[in-house]
Structure formats: structure tokens, C-alpha cells
């Protein structure tokens, strides 16, 4: 039961930091909470037998994406905006929260009522989720096309970001 207990602890930290991301007025504090959430999510991935996904999560999300976010926040010199928000319950906060909770309940009911198995699988093959298994699955068979499409997308995003953010085109 140690893994399950750890999973709940890490998940609680992730959800707490997610709530902080949404509720902090200062975008910089939101970004820092997001870094912590990504790190603990990576720990959850390790517990879920996905070590390679956890590695990429730390490298890409907690590393590259968050550096971009913090870089832009500091570049734009954003301070605590939205002073009206979260002091009191505005109609926007109310409707947004209600819609989100309803959507979450819908997702949960799909998961729990449509027969998602409750018992974990008896065992996993050796090396499941490690670099070799994931890499071989990625390079062989039907995931090849998706990999190539993503590589084209990354190139396009690189060029697009440079063109967009340049001062004089």
C-alpha cells in the first residue's frame, strides 16, 4: 500500500498547486506553483510505471515550458493584475467554477459508470515504460506517422514563434 499512499500524497500536492495556479493574482506566483505541480506530477508518473514520461515531463514541462513562461512574465514586467478578482465572488467566478465542476463530474461519471476496471492489472511486462520499450514502440508501426507530423509541427512552431515575436518583420 506504500505506492498508493505516496500516489495520494503527490496527487494532493499537484491539486493544491493547481488551485494556487488558478487563484494567485500574481502571474509569477502562478508560474512557480505550476513548476511544483509539474514536478510532483512527474513523481506520480514514476509511481504509474512510466519513468520515461516522467523524465520528459521534468525536461519539457518543468524545464523548457516553465522557463518560457517565467521569461515572458519577466519580459512583460507583469504585476498583480485582476484586482477585482477573488476578493469577492463575481458572476464570472461563480459561473466558471460551476461549469468546470459540472464538467469534472461528467468526466468522473464516464470513468466510473462506464465500466473502467477498478482492480489494477496483475503484472506488467519487464521494462514497461522505460526508454527502450517506448522508443521501439514509437519507431515501429503506426506511431511513425504521428512522430513525423509532430516533428513538422515543432519546426513550424519554431519558425512561427520567431516571426511573431520579432520587432520588425
Amino acid at each position, binding site marked *: 500500500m506504500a505506492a498508493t499512499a505516496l500516489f495520494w500524497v503527490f496527487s494532493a500536492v499537484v*491539486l493544491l498547486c493547481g488551485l494556487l*495556479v488558478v487563484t494567485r493574482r500574481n502571474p509569477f506566483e502562478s508560474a512557480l506553483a505550476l513548476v511544483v505541480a509539474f514536478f510532483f506530477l512527474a513523481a506520480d508518473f514514476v509511481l504509474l510505471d*512510466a519513468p520515461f514520461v516522467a523524465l520528459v*515531463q521534468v525536461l519539457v514541462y518543468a524545464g523548457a515550458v516553465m522557463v518560457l513562461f517565467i521569461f515572458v512574465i519577466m519580459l512583460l514586467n507583469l504585476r498583480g493584475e485582476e484586482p477585482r478578482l477573488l476578493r469577492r465572488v463575481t458572476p464570472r467566478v461563480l459561473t466558471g467554477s460551476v461549469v468546470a465542476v459540472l464538467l*469534472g463530474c461528467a468526466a468522473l461519471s464516464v470513468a466510473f459508470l462506464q465500466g473502467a476496471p477498478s482492480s489494477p492489472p496483475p503484472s506488467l511486462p519487464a521494462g514497461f515504460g522505460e526508454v527502450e520499450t517506448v522508443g521501439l514502440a514509437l519507431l515501429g508501426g503506426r506511431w511513425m506517422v504521428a512522430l513525423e507530423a*509532430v516533428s513538422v509541427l515543432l519546426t513550424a512552431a519554431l519558425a512561427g514563434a520567431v516571426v511573431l515575436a520579432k520587432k520588425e518583420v
Partner: protein
Amino acid sequence: MKVEISLHAVLALSAALFTIGVAGVLVRRNLLVVFMSVELMLNGVNVAFVGFARQWADVGGHLAALLTMAVAASEVAVGLALVILLFRNRGSSDLDDLTLLRG
């Protein structure tokens, strides 16, 4: 390899994370925080992918999660470039100020 954590726990975490992300997108007006909330939603989906991959011992879920991360990274790159552009032209990153297309 012994497996302990049940799929229901994983799906609960996934749904909760997605819900927090949706709430952030709907409630917040700061463009950067909206982007961060979108990242939270994508991470919630990734959790579900990894959980299902483990349940059926199929690495395909891991691959889907990895491809999602790549798409999210490119989305952030282009999105933040757009934020810089908007801030430069209009001096604000508040979504309520972007009413150029309102009739």
C-alpha cells in the same frame, strides 16, 4: 512487477486536474494564467493516458502522452509569442481588453 494503484485513483486525479484547468480558463482574464490553465488541462489528460496504458499494459498511452507534450510545447511557444505581440501593440495582457473584433 507488482502493480498497486487502481485505475480509479488515476482517473480521479485526471478529472480533478482537468477541472481545475477548465476553471482557470473560464475564470481568469490574464492571458498568461489562461495558458497555464490550459497546460494543467493537458497534464490531466496525460495522467489518464498513462493510467490506461498501465491498466492494459500497452505503451501506446505513453506515446500519446509524449506526443501531447510535444504539441503543448509548440503551443506554448507560439502562444507566448502572440502574448508578447499583443502586449507590445496594446499594452495589456488582459483578455477583457481584446475587443477588437467585437461588433
